[in-house]
């Protein structure tokens, strides 16, 4: 299967790029083997090997994003979309066949999932994976065998499904299989209802743990009269212990749409940040020895929180947290008329000391360490009926921008609109660098398809971030970045021998002559979606790179001095 717009770039370009691969120590390309040289006293340093590859040249520089249709739909087999089918499903990007290209997996609410094998140059081959009625999806090396696996959450009463990548066996078969196959395996100890999930090393023991959250209203629809009393429901932390997982219920009540595992407080330990729909407050758990305590970090949160997103928007080393909600992006009579009948139906929640507002929220820490909502001040509080939202340096100026996909289809809520659909334009926001955001219609990312899950990743290996959206009741879309601004550095971590081979949770800090940029290695994020473990730093074209510091999930650090610009680094940790 090919995407709708074929392109001229030949495969040998990529091969040539691979010939440029250098092992560390070759000076010409700027990639350097750099055993960690400077590190905080209390953190051990570990040596790394660095291999750099060049990016492919961009196919075209139109100065905008170009939308490509991917031959995948979800929700089209149903006669009508009602709540909560309306919540759609996610998409994940990562390398499934270890060829260096990022592949895609789409979950579907009404049919099987689909793998899109990336053949390079935006050519994909699709393959059906018999995992039905999915919600969330992540591509992560669960069993640490060097091949990324696929994990789904589901609508209804199904929990998590684990599709083990049999790449190792496929490669050894005779003749070698052209692509890895996948087999459904149990995840020992994981039995909870799961709408949303997040992967990460939450207890710092070097392996990947899993946090799941159920969606109470959907359980009610499926006959669970009292979800909070059901032992499979709630927010559940599954701590891995050598290939099996031990469940710890964090909260019996859950209307969870998104979960993040990130070091929100900057204390070197990951917190678990759970976003709930409706009146149920969002919650953050912090590790306290062997227990997990709820901490009140925020004075204000979104009400029906659909996405959790985090990143360093201001290049000051601190995280700013973003959540999405339902709030019309303009107040024209035409827009409001579409919303008003639904707004008259939904139940408004009021309670003393309720921190929830029906708007996007941007949490920024002030000088005293308190989180403050600055979404309105920065112009990103209202982006429509918003689902997936991601930060990413789309124009490669060294600043994280923001993209939000939106829209709603529900015949029981929007019966007054054609096809029961609230049609909205996705919203792209350019980071101005002074804290505020400008709308960026010039990027032509204002698709009116009903977006749900969304990831940003470099799908064509040209160095910049493309965007992939799983649309409900419409074709999935790939927005090819043809802005051709700036430069970039991408980093893949490899931690052989570890149970967290991609270094999920590692923090990368890139020092340049124009500021310090921080990124995290993730496995999942946003709304129901799985992130590629590949980290992207956008940079002004003339930026000089001074050092890349890696804080591995176990706290060890590595530093690479003067990494090359416009390259993808594969950084392999060596503990010997």
């Amino acid at each position, binding site marked *: 299967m090919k995407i709708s717009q074929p392109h001229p770039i030949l495969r040998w370009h990529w091969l040539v790029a691979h010939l440029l691969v250098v092992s560390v120590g070759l000076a010409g390309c700027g990639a350097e083997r750099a055993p960690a040289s400077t590190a905080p006293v209390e953190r051990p340093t570990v040596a790394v090997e660095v291999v750099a590859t060049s990016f492919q040249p961009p196919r075209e520089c139109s100065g905008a994003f170009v939308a490509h249709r991917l031959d995948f739909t979800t929700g089209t087999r149903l006669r009508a979309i009602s709540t909560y089918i309306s919540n759609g499903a996610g998409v994940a990007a990562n390398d499934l066949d270890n060829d260096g290209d990022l592949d895609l997996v789409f979950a579907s609410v009404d049919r099987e999932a689909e793998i899109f094998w990336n053949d390079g140059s935006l050519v994909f081959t699709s393959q059906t994976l018999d995992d039905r009625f999915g919600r969330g999806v992540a591509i992560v090396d669960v069993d640490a065998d060097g091949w990324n696996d696929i994990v789904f959450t589901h609508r209804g009463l199904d929990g998590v499904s684990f599709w083990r990548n049999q790449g190792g066996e496929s490669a050894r078969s005779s003749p070698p299989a052209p692509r890895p196959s996948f087999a459904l395996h149990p995840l020992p100890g994981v039995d909870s209802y799961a709408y949303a999930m997040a992967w990460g090393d939450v207890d710092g023991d070097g392996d990947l743990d899993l946090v799941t959250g159920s969606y109470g209203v959907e359980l009610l629809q499926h006959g669970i009269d009292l979800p909070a009393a059901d032992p499979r429901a709630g927010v559940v932390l599954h701590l891995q212990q050598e290939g099996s997982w031990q469940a710890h219920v964090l909260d019996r009540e859950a209307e969870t749409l998104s979960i993040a595992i990130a070091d929100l407080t900057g204390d070197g330990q990951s917190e678990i940040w759970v976003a709930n729909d409706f009146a149920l407050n969002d919650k953050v758990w912090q590790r306290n020895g062997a227990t997990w305590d709820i901490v009140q970090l925020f004075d204000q949160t979104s009400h029906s929180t659909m996405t959790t997103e985090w990143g360093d928007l201001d290049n000051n080393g601190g995280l700013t947290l973003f959540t999405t909600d339902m*709030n019309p992006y*303009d*107040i024209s*009579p*035409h827009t*409001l*008329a*579409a919303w*008003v*009948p639904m707004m*008259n139906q939904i*139940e*408004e*929640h*009021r*309670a*003393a000391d309720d921190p929830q507002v029906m708007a996007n929220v941007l949490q920024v820490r002030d000088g005293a360490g308190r989180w403050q909502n600055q979404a*309105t*001040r*920065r*112009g*990103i509080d*209202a982006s429509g009926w918003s689902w997936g939202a991601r930060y990413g340096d789309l124009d490669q100026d060294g600043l994280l921008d923001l993209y939000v996909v939106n829209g709603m289809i529900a015949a029981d809520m929007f019966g*007054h*609109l054609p096809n029961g659909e609230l049609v909205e334009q996705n919203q792209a926001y350019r980071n101005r660098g002074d804290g*505020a*955001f*400008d709308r960026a219609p010039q990027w032509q990312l204002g698709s009116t398809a009903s977006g749900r899950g969304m990831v940003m990743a470099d799908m064509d290996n040209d160095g910049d971030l493309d965007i992939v959206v799983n649309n409900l009741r419409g074709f999935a879309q790939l927005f090819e970045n043809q802005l051709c601004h700036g430069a970039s550095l991408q980093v893949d971590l490899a931690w052989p021998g570890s149970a967290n081979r991609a270094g999920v949770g590692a923090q990368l800090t890139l020092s340049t002559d124009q500021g310090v940029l921080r990124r995290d290695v993730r496995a999942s994020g946003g709304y129901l979606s799985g992130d590629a473990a590949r980290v992207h730093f956008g940079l002004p074209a003339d930026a000089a790179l001074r050092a890349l510091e890696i804080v591995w999930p176990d706290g060890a650090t590595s530093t690479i001095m003067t990494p090359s610009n416009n390259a993808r680094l594969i950084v392999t940790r060596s503990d010997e």
Partner: protein
Amino acid sequence: MRQSTLTHPARLNVQAALPLLRLPDPKQHTRIVLASLAIGLIASYTAVALGWLPLWAATAMVLIVLTPAGALKWRDDYHRYGATIMGLSILLTAQGLHTVEHLVQWAQYNLLYWTMRQSNGLLSPANAEWVHFTWNWLVLITVVLLMIGGMRGGWMWVLLTVALFHTIEHSYTFIRYQMILRELTAMDVLNVTAQGLPGIVGRDGWLARSEWTRGTWICTIPGLTTAVRLDVHFWWNILEMTPLLLAGHFYLRGQAAAGRFE
């Protein structure tokens, strides 16, 4: 022997110092006013207790029962003091009750944590865009007429300014209400109200959400661009009631000094 001279402060004549307090006095109509009030309250309480009427209808019943007595009182004001003071008396009574309504709404929302939809005060059907629109134009016209009738001064100009902006705010919401109704009608949605949407100021209002203020400090001015509509209009009425009381006070004191308000 030392002698001290004790001076007794003059007894404060509240009625003289605050002539505004004399204005609501029904005088010879006191009995009829009290009787009307008693009848209205008993009837409305009974009707609500027995479930015959909702609270808003009972409140309206009290006001309707009181109207004849009020008309007699205002006619008396006209004959005693002239049209301007009668107009001031009517405006004070109406705006006073209006402020009570907003105070009840504010308490429902901020103290009882009722939803915006529930926080309708005592006269919920009156919480409609056309009522707000008409009311504020009538207030503005009355203020202008009072000024023409001789009631001027600094506070009156403040009142005029506030009333003008309040009327512009309600004209904006009313026009947008009509535009949204037209959109809804075009969608064949006829049974949905579009009441209570933000106006120029307040959270999600024009000032906070227009493209030229988006992402600026203007969007987060406490109250002005952050308050919900219910709070915004509570404060609009406080802002309007305060200069009205002060303007009335100074005007009546002047009239009393001139022997025209005994």
